[in-house]
């Protein structure tokens, strides 16, 4: 794997847009994609969080404990502790990336009440997804977390491989 060689570059306006997305949706989790070329982000795609949609959590690799927990909550409350990407939005973004010649670089989501670290659920689902990316002709992205728990946003980016989490440093430019 060669993706550790170059640091990801996120332009300030895109970073600000991502933070704005997290703040607009708080206390619900936001989610989206960053795409670019040569490890430089050029474009942000906001994706709808549809965790509240009937049946969404059944098909999303959540483990039994998370499903049981989600089922105890109202649809609005579910979006405070989880996200499920609208895959119609995802496909539209993927098609746009292909037309613009961009690579998917990052999957991002927010943790309104928790630290900017992948949860057990994040790690499990990212690990399940490792085998899916090549099948849909995309490289394995890094995972970026935006925490709003302390007022000022905290942003961290990670690789998640085979259940192992490692930092994926990025530069803001």
């Amino acid at each position, binding site marked *: 794997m060669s993706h550790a060689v170059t640091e990801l570059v996120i332009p300030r306006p895109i970073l600000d847009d991502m933070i704005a997305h997290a703040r607009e949706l708080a206390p619900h989790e936001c989610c989206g994609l960053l795409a670019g070329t040569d490890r430089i982000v050029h474009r942000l795609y906001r994706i709808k969080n549809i965790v509240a949609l009937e049946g969404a959590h059944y098909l999303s690799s959540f483990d039994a404990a998370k499903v049981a927990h989600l089922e105890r909550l109202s649809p609005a409350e579910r979006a405070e*502790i989880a996200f499920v990407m609208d895959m119609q939005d995802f496909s539209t973004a993927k098609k746009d990336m292909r037309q613009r010649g961009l690579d998917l670089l990052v*999957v991002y989501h927010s943790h309104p009440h928790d630290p900017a670290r992948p949860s057990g659920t994040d790690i499990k689902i990212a690990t399940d997804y490792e085998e899916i990316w090549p099948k849909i002709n995309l490289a394995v992205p890094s995972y970026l977390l935006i925490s709003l728990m302390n007022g000022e946003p905290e942003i961290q980016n990670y690789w998640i491989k085979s259940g192992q989490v490692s930092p994926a440093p990025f530069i803001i430019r």
Partner: protein
Amino acid sequence: MIKVRIPTPLRPLTKNQGEVSVAAASIEDLVNNLEAAYPGIKARLCDDKGELRRFVNIYVNEEDIRFLKGKDTALKTGDEVSIVPAIAGGSPWPA
């Protein structure tokens, strides 16, 4: 026969197989034949009207069927179909 890739969350329905083969001339056909072989799978993929749910994608040779002809998308021997669940995650509590 059409090869269908089954994602982890649906494997309890397919006896833990990550790939199954079914005969089908269209996506609608494929979903119905999957349902006959693995009862319960259709409801995970489609709503009451038979439309693909928003938290799942079906790709035929890397193209989303939403950009082809949806459930009427034709299939031929050798096509590879991937069922792709939504990217998801969430905050740690209850961990």
